[in-house]
Structures are given as structure tokens and as C-alpha cells.
């Protein structure tokens, strides 16, 4: 196990290096002149040349890449020209809100998918057959509907038509001024027992979470369902049945072998949510990293955008690492042969 962890961690270094390289290359795609874009079209030629020298844009690319890596190592991702703050500070300020949103959605998604998938997979009666039909159509629909469009429908239904939700703007009523500890309003208001803020926050949280859950539960539900089916149909289940093992024990064995694919997909889906939250945040003005990224695109704020892309990719890489380690822990074959991915 230790050898496997060591090998897997060693892989992380070149992977992180490549991610830095790709995110560095992104800004080199910028058409025209980076300095000119920053100063605006009214700037003089001398001013542009001056800024080019200051930014080191005339150096060879490997020198620029070296400086970029050096910056990352020191926590310097450049300065956003829209907020005027270091990009890392901007992101650190907004990340808790985003992570809270996707984590809450993720927990609800997994709970729903596991409950419905297991019940559907383990019981056979008229009700679950109808349920299968419904879940087929639901999956087909959830996979075809754009998340931002669904978010808007949710707003239209629950804010405009049936005004049961609060205005879908921000994370809590702006009249409040809650204490900031972690940056996640949910955690902070729970820790400080600030109930008015907590309720206001839950009011604001419910619609974006509903959007993410509706769109993203379907593929996990189908996966849970099919891997439970697979392991119930497998040879060892038949053997267990033939040997007269009690049903409870058979289900236990089946679940254990259905677990690894479910964990992989769950992890992959957490990284999908990182991207999926972008548009949902935009619709609900959530004020997290996703909305920051959209603003960066709209304002041609490349340092900010580069920072978001880099950190999002690094986060995904860490999630993949966790998946692999969990796999090795659950499935002894992985430890020996060195990974399934």
C-alpha cells in the first residue's frame, strides 16, 4: 500500500508541472499584444513598449515560463486588473462559497442516487418497474437540458410565478452583516449560531442546489443502478445463492464489489460540478469563483482567468488522487497491479 501511495504521489509532480505549462500557454494564445490590451487603444507606443519591458514580454518563452512557475511557487498568480487585487486573494475570498455550493449539492446528489439506485437495484416489483421507466426519461431529460436554462426556469417558477423563494441574488439578505470565519456562510452561521443569517442563507441556497442536483443526479443514479445490477448477476452472487447464504449477506457482498465504480464516478462528478457551478453561480449571482471566472472572461482579465483555470485543474488532480487512493484501499487488486486508470 505504501509503495502504491508513493508511486501515485510521484506521478503528481509531472502532472502538476504539465498543468502549469498548459495554463501558461493559454495566455500566449492571446491575439495581438497583451500590453496593448491592458493599456487600451489610446495608449502611446512608448507606454506600450515600456509595459512590455516591465512585464518581460520580450524575453524568450522559457524565461517567461520560469518566472510564471516561480510566481506560482510563491503563491503569486498575478494581479487581476478588474479588482486590482492579487488573483490568489480574489480566489481565496470566493472559493469557500463555491466549494460550499457544490459540496452541498454533491451530498444531496449522492444520497438520492444511492438510495434510489440501491432500492431500484435490489427490489423487483411493479413499483420499481414504473420507477425504472421514470428514471430512464428523467436521465434522458437531465442530460439534454442546459444547466443555466434549467436554473432560469427554477427562478421563473419559484420566484416569479409562485413567489415562495427569495430574490435569487447573492448568498443571504444584504441587510445582514455576518461574521466571516471560513468564508462559507453555511459553516460560519452554524458555528456562530447566527440563526437569522442561517435561514436567509438556506433560502438563497435552495434554488441553485436544486438546479445542480436535478441536472447532475441522473448519471450517478444510472451508474449506481447498473453496477448493482452487474454484481447481482455475477458468478459469485449465484454461487452465494447456491450455497444458501442469507439474502442480507449476498447483498452485502454485491454492494462491496459495486463500490469502486461508484466511487470513481462520484469523484469525477465532483470535478464536473466545479465547472457546472460556473453558470449556476452566474444565474443566481452567487459571488463565488464561477462568477469571478465569467466576469474575467467578459472583462478580458487574463491573469484572473488563468488563475481560475490553474486552481480548478489542480483541484481536479487532487480529487483524482483521492479516488485512486480510495480505490487502492477498497480493492486489493489495484494495490498490486498499480491502478485502474
Amino acid at each position, binding site marked *: 500500500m505504501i509503495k502504491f501511495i508513493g508511486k501515485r504521489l510521484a506521478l503528481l509532480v509531472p502532472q502538476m508541472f504539465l498543468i502549469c505549462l498548459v495554463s501558461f500557454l493559454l495566455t500566449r494564445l492571446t491575439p495581438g499584444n497583451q500590453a496593448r490590451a491592458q493599456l487600451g487603444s489610446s495608449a502611446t507606443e512608448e507606454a506600450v513598449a515600456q509595459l512590455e519591458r516591465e512585464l518581460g514580454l520580450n524575453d524568450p518563452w522559457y524565461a517567461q515560463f520560469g518566472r510564471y512557475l516561480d510566481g506560482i511557487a510563491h503563491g503569486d498568480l498575478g494581479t487581476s486588473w478588474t479588482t486590482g487585487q492579487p488573483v490568489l486573494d480574489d480566489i481565496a475570498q470566493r472559493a469557500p462559497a463555491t466549494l460550499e455550493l457544490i459540496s452541498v449539492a454533491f451530498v444531496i446528489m449522492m444520497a438520492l442516487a444511492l438510495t434510489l439506485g440501491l432500492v431500484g437495484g435490489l427490489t423487483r416489483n411493479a413499483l420499481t418497474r414504473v420507477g425504472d421507466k421514470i428514471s430512464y426519461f428523467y436521465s434522458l431529460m437531465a442530460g439534454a437540458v442546459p444547466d*443555466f436554462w434549467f436554473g432560469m426556469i427554477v427562478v421563473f417558477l419559484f420566484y416569479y410565478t409562485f413567489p415562495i423563494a427569495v430574490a435569487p441574488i447573492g448568498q443571504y439578505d444584504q441587510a445582514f452583516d455576518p461574521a466571516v470565519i471560513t468564508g462559507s456562510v453555511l459553516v460560519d452561521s452554524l458555528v456562530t449560531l447566527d440563526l437569522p443569517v442561517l435561514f436567509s442563507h438556506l433560502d438563497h441556497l435552495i434554488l441553485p442546489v436544486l438546479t445542480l442536483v436535478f441536472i447532475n443526479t441522473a448519471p450517478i443514479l444510472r451508474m449506481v443502478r447498473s453496477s448493482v445490477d452487474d454484481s447481482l448477476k455475477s458468478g459469485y452472487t449465484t454461487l452465494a445463492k447456491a450455497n444458501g447464504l442469507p439474502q442480507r449477506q449476498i447483498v452485502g457482498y454485491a454492494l462491496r464489489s459495486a463500490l469502486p465504480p461508484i466511487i470513481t464516478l462520484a469523484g469525477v462528478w465532483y470535478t464536473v460540478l466545479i465547472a457546472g457551478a460556473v453558470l449556476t453561480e452566474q444565474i443566481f449571482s452567487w459571488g463565488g469563483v464561477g462568477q469571478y471566472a465569467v466576469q474575467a472572461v467578459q472583462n478580458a482579465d487574463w491573469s484572473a482567468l488563468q488563475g481560475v483555470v490553474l486552481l480548478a485543474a489542480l483541484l481536479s488532480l487532487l480529487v483524482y488522487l483521492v479516488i485512486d487512493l480510495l480505490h487502492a484501499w477498497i480493492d486489493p487488486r489495484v494495490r498490486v497491479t498499480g491502478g485502474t486508470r
Partner: protein
Amino acid sequence: MTAISSISKSRPRVKRSPKSVLKRNPQLAIGLAAVGIVLAVAVLAPVLAPHDPERVVGPALLEPSAEYWFGTDRSGLDVFSRVIYAPRIDLLLAGVGTLLAALLGVPLGALAGYAPGFVGELISRVLDVVQAFPFFILAMCLLGIVGGTVPNIIAVLAVVNAPIYARLMFGQTQTLRNRTFVDAARVSGCRPRQVIFAHILPNSMAPILAQMSVTLGMSIILVAGVSFVGAGLRPPTAEWGVMIGDAAGGMFTGQWWPVIFPGVVLALTVMSFALVSNGITAANEARSRRG
């Protein structure tokens, strides 16, 4: 001449009436029919659309009526005509982008899967890294930087989707390379290139086609998403995402029609491609069960 034609006539042929196809593989039949309708609408848009999709035809934000079936948007454009014209650009972007992604990814995956040791390992590790970049954020970022023109959008779709095909083909090659017919081809003197193109690729077509149908749908959603945030196509282009983005504010104040209609048609289009994909997979499974 008569002899030849009589031979070809006397050959036993499996009769496949549309009804039996519908029964055997309803997903494929319904999906293909729906995709056919979308294609027909795209081709016939100038005939079907009552108005010019990019010209102001009346007052802004009229509710749906006999004159304007889907109402008008906040600039006074006819929503129905725009919805009809949109598949032209959406299918073009998604179709060409998907095709390029497959052309880029499949050979790469085959190479990675067939090449021994180091090269294969290297390619698959690089793919890991590219796939670590969240799909939508990467696409949005690339388009923000290079600008949301039609060729750029196609290029970005190809780049962000190519790893999916490389990975798929990698898996296929790994599975098939140890099968007897591949061994047979190898011992009878086929070069690696021949083995890949004549034996492994044809046997991987079904999953590739199924994936392409999924990518087509996902690309439509992606194009709509980037256009929605302003990194893709721009108004007044008749594209579903542009329309939804342009009318988004109306959902807070009750003007639902310029948002709902393009979204419903978009979702139905993506759904048809998903059905085709499910249908291909089902047909392939049925074929391999028959042996």
C-alpha cells in the same frame, strides 16, 4: 446482364420493414427520425421561417400570438424564426467540432494503446492532465482568449473533446489487441498500421459512433453555454444559447417566451442525439450477443 440481375434478385435478403426496426430498436428509430427532422428544419429554415431571424419585425416582447408563434424578444425579433434558424449554426459547429475531435483523438488513442510501453504511457498520462481541466471552464477560457468566431469555436470543441476519443480508442485497442483475430492478422504479416486501420478500427466503430452522437449533443449545450456568458457567438446571431442569454433577465420579470422556446427545442435536439447514441450501443450489444 439478365443472369446477373436474376442472381442478385434470388439472393436471400433479410427484410427489414421500418416497423420491425422500430420494434427492435425503438431508441435508434425515434432518435434518427428526430435528428432527421432537426436537419430538415435547418435546411428548410428560409422556407419555414415566417420572418427574417435577424431583422426587427415588430414591437419588443410581444407575447406568443397567431402572428408571432413564439412571441418577440426584447429587440423585437421573431423568436419562432430565430429558433428555426438556430440549428443551422448549432449543428454546423457541433457537427464539425465533433468530427474533428474524433479525427484527432482516435489515431492518438490507437497509437497509445498499440504502441508498447513508454509511448503509450506518456500519451495516456498527458491525456490525464488535459482532462483534469474542467471541461466548461477550459472551453470558456480558450474562447474568451481567442474570440468566439465560428472557426475558433469549432477548434475549441475539437480540442476539448479529443481526449474523450483518445481515451475511448485507447481502451478499445487494449481490449482488442489480444483477441485472436488481431493475433492472426499479426502473424500473417500485417504491419501495425494495417492492424490498427483494417482490424482494430472497424471493430471499434460502434462505440466511437455512439460517443460522437453524445458529443454532438454535449457540444450544442457547450456552445449555448459559452454564448450565454458572452464568450461564444454574439447577438443578433440566431443561436439557441445567444437567445437564452439575451433574454435571461425576462425570467425575473415574467417574459418567459424568449427563454423557454429556444431551450425546449435545444433540449429536444440534444435528446434525439442521445437516443441515437443509446440505439447504436443497443444494436451493437445485440450484434455481439448473436456472435
